[in-house]
């Protein structure tokens, strides 16, 4: 029996994950029928939502790459400077911080009472109103995705051997030839992967579209599900939209999985950039570099500065601690975020242990695929739909309000498992393959092998995956907005409600706490537990 312990852990984790998914799907399918689906698909509103979901994803993806590519090619020349490194770290932070923080930053810069509007008022005497609708969605997606694309392109450029740079420069390749002969071959594959990931992120960009869409006209499928459930209480429509989302997301997930099989997620701070700056510099090139860097600053640095300034103006410490609603939200953010994050890493490790033994020892490929798939299934199931299904299945059995925290933890945990598995997986399999003979030779097995050897060696990746899982869970707005109440409310929900009722000061207080909380977690994970690179 003992020799199957490794296998049981993964099967148990798979069972738990599949149980949640099956319960949810049961609830959804109870309400669906082909006739109903066809009726709703023919609805012009639904068609316009599907069209807008795809349209905004494609445009966002295109614009993000369009900005990130020249920015990366320019910034690569200056990566040795400390200031550039700090900006890159900030950019990475904006990608992994809760989305609502970024959205708030965008509103602070581009909103009707934002900096740009204030400047316009000063110059032209009129305020600017462009943030709600497609404009806002695109601006936010550029803000979130340019740093990500930048990171991906820089890491590709970093793979160009130093010698080839030197050969190219010595043979007098001009800027275009450098791009064509040296840089493009190194980045073209990653551009494809990056585009696919950005497309997927924009496709399921719930928080951005919910807040900046400005209503049903500019809505994506996930937000339409939310409106159908929360505002119209039209379960049929929510279920049909859910099924459409599953079909489209399956296609995207397949795209992502096939592209990113061997891709390892690493933060900027672990990216040891060593790109030499050997290119000729003249005033024209310098002017171009400055222009491109200014575009980058406008895209993602200005919102961050606007955010920091607004957080600094939040008020005194007493006003923060006397706001009981805010403190209650902080409490639930910590409880739910940490629970989901820890559970996510635990389940991911259990899945990986079995995967390792199935792949390396027993070579039972089909079972390994089943276990891996169970961890990644969430990629095609939007959390909001999963939550809807669970609500529909359990509402007649339990008091949903009483079990809400467990549902939120469960769903948020599932949404972060694919990330945890990706971060932990490569490290775990690497360590297993390097040290397996040593472990066998000294009969290092069981729990002591995990606790005393494997976990200490994986300290850095465990810390990273834990930090990302916790911060992603803390940033959730979809599931909490369905199951939350005045008693159970996290900071993102508190901020969303404050924004909705124009209590900007309260929203800023929430943002400040969420920002401190998530950046502290990321800082601790990277600086204290992370590898000491660069």
């Amino acid at each position, binding site marked *: 029996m003992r020799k199957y312990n490794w296998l049981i852990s993964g099967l148990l984790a798979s069972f738990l994950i599949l149980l949640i998914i099956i319960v949810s799907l049961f609830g959804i399918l109870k309400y669906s029928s082909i006739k109903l689906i066809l009726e709703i698909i023919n609805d012009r509103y639904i068609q316009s939502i599907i069209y807008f979901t795809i349209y905004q994803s494609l445009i966002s993806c295109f614009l993000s790459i369009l900005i990130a590519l020249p920015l990366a090619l320019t910034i690569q020349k200056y990566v040795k400077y400390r200031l550039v490194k700090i900006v890159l770290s900030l950019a990475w932070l904006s990608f992994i911080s809760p989305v609502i923080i970024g959205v708030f930053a965008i509103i602070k810069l581009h909103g009707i009472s934002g900096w740009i509007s204030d400047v316009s008022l000063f110059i032209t005497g009129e305020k600017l109103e462009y943030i709600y609708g497609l404009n806002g969605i695109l601006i936010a997606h550029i803000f979130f995705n340019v740093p990500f694309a930048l990171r991906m392109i820089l890491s590709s450029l970093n793979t160009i*051997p*130093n*010698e*080839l740079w*030197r*050969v190219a*420069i*010595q*043979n*007098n*390749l*001009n800027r275009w*030839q450098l791009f064509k*002969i*040296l840089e493009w*071959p190194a980045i073209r594959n990653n551009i494809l992967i990056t585009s696919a990931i950005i497309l997927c992120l924009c496709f399921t960009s719930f928080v951005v579209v919910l807040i900046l869409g400005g209503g049903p006209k500019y809505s994506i499928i996930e937000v339409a599900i939310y409106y159908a459930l929360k505002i119209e209480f039209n379960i049929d429509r929510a279920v049909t939209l859910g099924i459409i989302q599953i079909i489209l997301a399956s296609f995207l997930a397949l795209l992502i999985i096939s592209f990113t099989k061997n891709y390892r997620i690493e933060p900027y701070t672990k990216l040891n950039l060593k790109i*030499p700056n*050997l290119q*000729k510099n003249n005033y024209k090139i310098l002017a171009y570099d400055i222009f491109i860097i200014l575009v980058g600053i406008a895209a993602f640095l200005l919102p961050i500065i606007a955010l920091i300034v607004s957080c600094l103006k939040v008020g005194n410490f007493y006003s923060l601690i006397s706001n009981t609603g805010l403190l209650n939200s902080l409490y639930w953010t910590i409880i739910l975020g940490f629970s989901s994050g820890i559970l996510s890493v635990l389940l991911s490790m259990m899945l990986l242990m079995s995967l390792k033994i199935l792949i390396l020892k027993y070579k039972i490929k089909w079972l390994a695929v089943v276990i891996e798939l169970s961890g990644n299934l969430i990629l095609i199931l939007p959390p909001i739909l999963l939550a809807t299904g669970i609500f529909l299945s359990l509402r007649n059995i339990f008091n949903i309000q009483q079990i809400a925290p467990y549902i939120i933890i469960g769903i948020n945990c599932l949404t972060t498992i694919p990330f945890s598995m990706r971060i932990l997986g490569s490290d775990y399999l690497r360590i297993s393959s390097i040290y397996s003979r040593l472990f066998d030779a000294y009969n290092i097995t069981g729990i002591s092998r995990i606790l005393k050897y494997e976990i200490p060696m994986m300290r850095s990746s465990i810390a990273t995956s834990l930090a990302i899982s916790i911060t992603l869970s803390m940033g959730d707005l979809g599931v909490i907005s369905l199951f939350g109440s005045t008693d159970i409310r996290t900071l993102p929900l508190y901020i969303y409600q404050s924004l909705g009722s124009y209590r900007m000061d309260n929203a800023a207080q929430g943002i400040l706490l969420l920002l401190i909380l998530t950046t502290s977690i990321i800082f601790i994970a990277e600086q204290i537990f992370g590898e000491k690179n660069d």
Partner: protein
Amino acid sequence: MIKVENISVKLDDFKTNYSMDVDNGEWIGIIGQSGSGKSTLLNLIAGFIYADSGSIRINSVEMNSTHPSERPVSCLFQENNLFPHLSVYENIAIGISPRLKLNASEKKEVQEILDYLNLSDKHNSDIGTLSGGERQRVAIGRIVLSNKKIILLDEPFSQLDPILRIEMLNLIRKIKDEKKLTIIMVLHTPIEAVSYVDRFIQIKNGRIERNIKPTEYSLDIT
């Protein structure tokens, strides 16, 4: 003539100070322990690193702030000399036309180099299909085509087997004599180059320790 006078550069905790003269047509072997600053010297001459102080003159022309492409210098590295997505022909052609748009006489020149290096049958080959020796021959072809009179070789053959290394040294000598080139070569196994170089320069802790005649070279010198 290459005249290096007190070139100094600080790289992290490592500081160099080199002074040396190399006559036109000379073949210099640079020796020294790893980390002693052999490659740094080549990088300074090639212009990949700019010196903090001192001067580099090539044929009496000050080169301190000259861009690498404008120096009469070509380099051959241990690896990664070739662009993996370009064919053998294109990798050589870069030496004459970075745009890879060659006129008839340039095409003829590339073809002659391919013939000269016995690479004609590899004309359109993918770089990934070549052996280590063939790759270095392609890189040598580009260097020859670029028509620069000083060649810097940074342990270019250390990944090849001993017989191939000797073949390559013979090829370099042939090209050097025909084209009247000056060669500065960082050596991995100096003993093999004893019958090729005019003198060895020994480097230690970022400084030139001494000049050694090939006849004076012995195995205890590193």
